[in-house]
Each structure stands twice: as structure tokens, then as C-alpha cells.
């Protein structure tokens, strides 16, 4: 979408034109949903959170500074809404989703590489408290002090949750790699890539020994 078209849509949204609102919604649906999916447990939950975010966008769009990138502003709103949703459901913050763990290890990854969906599923499998901290630190780039202010936790708790999140992700990647190796379609080759990225990018990351070059 071009800059001019975007500004026209924003102008229409300021006038609360439903057509402009829908076009803007569709244009940034994927980007917004991708952010919310990292914080939510599943697609439906992410959609609900995303719609809350878009509601704020449409009701506050007149405050948007058009000299700034719209995508960054939108992304910020989506992140804040996701955090608000997490804080509203704190009682489930440390619950492990065992169903997803079973689902993942049973065979989703036995015959294919880890891709976006796999990584996303791993992140969604994390307990919400670990997942949120991991997203904010690893993906968004916040410090532990800032995460503490956002989530109303201490920096120490943020560090602890991040460490636990990483441990779980590593374990799942290792499990996924083991599953892939068992059903190795390369017929005995001593390694197979488990994610669709270059080996150089994962140098140093712990994997099962058989996967190393």
C-alpha cells in the first residue's frame, strides 16, 4: 500500500467511514495478527485481542501523527492491548498447556522442518507469563526493568521467566529435532536442518548432536 493511499484511508477512518475502516483493517490484518498471535494462546484468542487493538486505533486515529510511520504506531497499540489481555488473565499466567505439548511431540514435526507455524506454536505453548516476557525481551527488545513496569513484576521475575521460557523452547526444539531425526527422509544422513534457516544463523545454538555439521 502506498503512502498516499494510506493517508486517504486514515482520513476516511477519521471520518468514521466504514469502508475506509475495513480497508485499513484488511491491509494491516496480517501484521497485527502476527503480533497478537505471539501473545495469545490460539488464533481465536489472538483475533479477539487484535480487534480490541483495532478498536483503539479507530477511536483514537485522530491523535495519530501522520508524519510518523503508521505501522509502528499500530504495532505499539497491538502490543499494549496484548499485554493488557495478559494482565487481565493473570490467574492462568503460569499454566502449562500440556495439550499443545502432546500435540507437538506426537508428530507435527516428524516429517517436516520447523517453520513459522512451528515456532509460533512453540511460543504459544509457553505459559502466558513466560511467553509474554520472552516476546517483550527477545522479539520487542525491552529491558527487564521496562518489562517489570509493563507487567507489574520485578526485573528479577522478568529474568526468571525469560530463562524458563528459553529452557522450554530449547527443549522443544531439541525434541522436535529428535523426532525429525527418527523419521529422517535423508536415509541416514547424520544431520538434517530443523528450521528453514541457514546453518550459519544457528551456529552455537544447542541442538542434538546428530544435527551438527
Amino acid at each position, binding site marked *: 500500500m502506498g503512502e498516499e493511499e494510506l493517508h486517504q484511508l486514515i482520513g476516511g477512518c477519521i471520518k468514521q467511514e*466504514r469502508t475506509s475502516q475495513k480497508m485499513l*483493517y484488511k491491509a494491516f490484518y*496480517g501484521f497485527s495478527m502476527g503480533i497478537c498471535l505471539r501473545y495469545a494462546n490460539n488464533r481465536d484468542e489472538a483475533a479477539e485481542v487484535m480487534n480490541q487493538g483495532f478498536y483503539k486505533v479507530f477511536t483514537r486515529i485522530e491523535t495519530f501523527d501522520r508524519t510518523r510511520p503508521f505501522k509502528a504506531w499500530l504495532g505499539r497499540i497491538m502490543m499494549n492491548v496484548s499485554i493488557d489481555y495478559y494482565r487481565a488473565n493473570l490467574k492462568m499466567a503460569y499454566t502449562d498447556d500440556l495439550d499443545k505439548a502432546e500435540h507437538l511431540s506426537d508428530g507435527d514435526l516428524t516429517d517436516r522442518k520447523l517453520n513459522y507455524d512451528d515456532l509460533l506454536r512453540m511460543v504459544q505453548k509457553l505459559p502466558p507469563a513466560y511467553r509474554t516476557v520472552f516476546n517483550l525481551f*527477545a*522479539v520487542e527488545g525491552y529491558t527487564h526493568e521496562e518489562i517489570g*513496569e509493563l507487567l507489574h513484576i520485578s526485573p528479577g521475575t522478568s529474568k526468571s521467566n525469560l530463562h524458563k521460557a*528459553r529452557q522450554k523452547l530449547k527443549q522443544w526444539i531439541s525434541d522436535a529435532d529428535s523426532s525429525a531425526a527418527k523419521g529422517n527422509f535423508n536415509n541416514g544422513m547424520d544431520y538434517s536442518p530443523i528450521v528453514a*534457516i541457514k546453518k550459519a544463523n544457528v551456529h552455537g*545454538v544447542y541442538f542434538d548432536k546428530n544435527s551438527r555439521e
Partner: protein
Amino acid sequence: MRKENNEELDKLFKMGTEDPINEPVFREADWDAMEQLLDQPKKRGGIVYWLPRLGGVAALMLLFLGWLLLKPQVVKHNDNQQVATVHSNPDTGTSGGTNRHETADSSKHKILNPAGYAQTAEHPGAGKKTNRSFPYQPGGPAATLPAKAPANGSNVIANANADGRKPTMGDKKELGTADANKTNSNTLAANTTITPDKKELGTADANKTNSNTLAANTTVTPDKKELGTADANKANGNTNSLAANAPKVKVKTVGQANGTNHAIFALSAIASSDVNGTSPLSSGRMGGNFGAIFSISSGKWTFSTGGMYSIKPYDESFANYHTAYVFQTNPTTVGANCRMIDIPLNVNYQVYKQGVNKFTVGTGFSSYIILREDYTFNYANAYYAQGPAGYSVVNRNRNIMSILNLDATYERRINSKFGVVLQPYMKLPLSNVGASQVKLQSTGVAVGLSWNLNSVKKPD
């Protein structure tokens, strides 16, 4: 090594989940849900605008009601009041009045002191033992009360007969009635006018709370005796002075058993809505309170305390928000929500009471035990904002006796045990409140149900 592993892992997921190629596909159902959200009607905030004004109107109505009911009214018998109606001559020993009957001796007539009265040989009561348990007023014209003479000039007598019979006079007798009724006070005057051959007596009593005093003047002509006896009658601590064998004057005082007032203990369940904010309350937010109040009432004074659970949301400018945290981007406003225990210590004074209705005004101090404070930071532009969305403080702050309470209370008794209460109030901070250290004000109206724990029945 481990740190590098962690960084690589973070990068793995960052790149993997932010890849635009893998963005989710649009679903029409999600847009339908979005449309429903956009079509929802906006919530009205009018109640926030009207509540402080309605509270002010309620307070003014209470004040008007109190003024209306406090206007001078025709004296009437009341179970809570002592009433004595006597007929008195306004002339005797007073500044005068109509139907003055004066004799050459009237100017010399003075109210005898008790000793003199008792020693008056011709006084019918002189030789009798009188039961006087109350002090006499010093004699003098000041003891008389304003009295009005009967319209027809005939004798109208009540409660002024030493032997229970209407006093008779040779020719004329002027009597006037004097009524004075105040809460718990009686004024009794018994005057008997006497023809030129007779002496005028005038008695007037000023009664204070739970006591009557009667000064009896008796002057006696060589032929006749006028009596204005004063007897002290004790009845459960109440003292009335009347002419001997005079018709009884009822004295009833609620809560009076042995000459003292009983304290009444009461427990009230209170709920209220109020508007909270910093000064001024133009952008206040509505909160709620509920709890119990214990009170002790003695006479016109009521002392109360208790505990109220309060939810106080408010908005404030970031300029008024105090924090040690250094924001990269300052928020414009801060939304706050405080939950606390409010412990009031109030004193109320009864300005009016009639029948089942009572009106009091009061003041006092409250202490806030703040259980939780939640703050939300609102930025002017989310793009610029590099800072926290909110902050919470749990069970940290206290404000002991630093909130000033002002209230006006209307209470209507349902029966001797229960009553309903309506109370507009204001809470003004004397110090900063909470972690944000703001001057948090509250204005609202409380309603409640009160239960007298030890209601006292009226003595017969």
C-alpha cells in the same frame, strides 16, 4: 557461550515469527466481530457530571428542610418535652402588661425567698413540710415569664390552686397564661392578680433541662390569702414545681431515667457512590463505598467510627503524578484506581429533631489504609512512547487521620430500633494520598440503615 546461545535463540524466534511471508491470512469472520465492536453504543458519562451536583442539591435540600422545620411553631405537648401551662399575671413584679392590677402595695411585692416563703405564717404551706428537692430561683421580677391575659378579662386559671380548686378572688383576678416550651425545658409561671385589696403574686420559673424552678410569691391581704404554692415533686428524678394539689403537669423526657441522658448505641450499614478526583473535581470518576458505622449518641451529640471499603478511581495530569521512575516519554495523563479501607472518626451535632425525623451536621477525620493502587499511563502518541503502560502498588501507603470529613445527615426512624439514613458528604485531603501523592477529594451521597442497639422506652 551460554549467552550467545540465548541470543541466537532469541534471534531465531524473532526472525521466524516476524517474517511477513508467514503473516496470517485475512478472515472475514474477524472483520464481522470488529464491526460489532464498532457498532456498540458508547457508554454515558453523564452520571459523573451530575453526581456531585446532585449531592450538592441534596445537601441544600437538607439544609432547607432543617430551616423549614426549625421555624417557630405553636407549642404543643410533646412526649419529649415538659410542658406546663399556667396562668400568670404579667404585671406582678414584671415590666407590665395588659390588665394590670396594681395596688398600692404591688410595687412592694417581692418574690419571697424560700426561707421567707416558708416562714410566712399565713401562707398555707408555711407550716407544712414541703418536699423541695430543687433550688429556688432567687426572687425577682426576672423570674416571671411573658404571659398573656385572657381575652375576656375573666379569670382563666390552670394549675394554680393550692388546694386543687380554682382560686377565687373577691372581685377580679387576672390571670394570664404563660407558656414557654423549649426542648427539655419548662417554664412555669403562676401569677394571681389581686384586687386592690389583695396582693399580686407573680411567679415565674425558668426551667432548665430536666428541672423546674418555681418562685412563688404570695402576698396576703388581711382578708384573703393568695397562694401560689410551689411543691417539688420528684418522679424518677424529674422535678416539677406546682401549686399544691394542682393539676398535674406531665413531664416526659426520653432517655431520662435518673436525671441523666442515656447514651444510645447504634450500628449502621452504609453504602455510597461518590465522585473522586484531584482539585477541582471537574474530571472526577465515580467510585463506590460500603461498610459499617458504629455510633454513640448522647443528647445532641453523636460520635461515630467504623470501616468502609472504598473503590476510588480518578484521573490526574501527569504533572501531578509523583514517581521516582524516569520516563523516556512522559505520559499526558495517569488513570488511577485505589482500593482502600476508610476508617472515619466523626462527631455530629443534632440541629433539629421532631418526631421521627432528625437532622445533624458533622465533621471529623478519616484514615485511609490503601490496599492497592493501579496506575495507567496515557501517552499523547503511542509511537513516541517508550515507557511502561502501568504500575501497581500493593498495600504500602497509609493516610492516618489526614482526610477531613464534612457531612449533613438526615435520619428517619422507622421504629425504636431501626431507621434510614441519607447523608451527603465531602472528604477533603489534608495531606497527599497514595503513591502518586495527589490531593484526592471525594464527594458523594450515602444511604444506610441504622439499628439502635439499646433503644430506650419513654417513661410513663
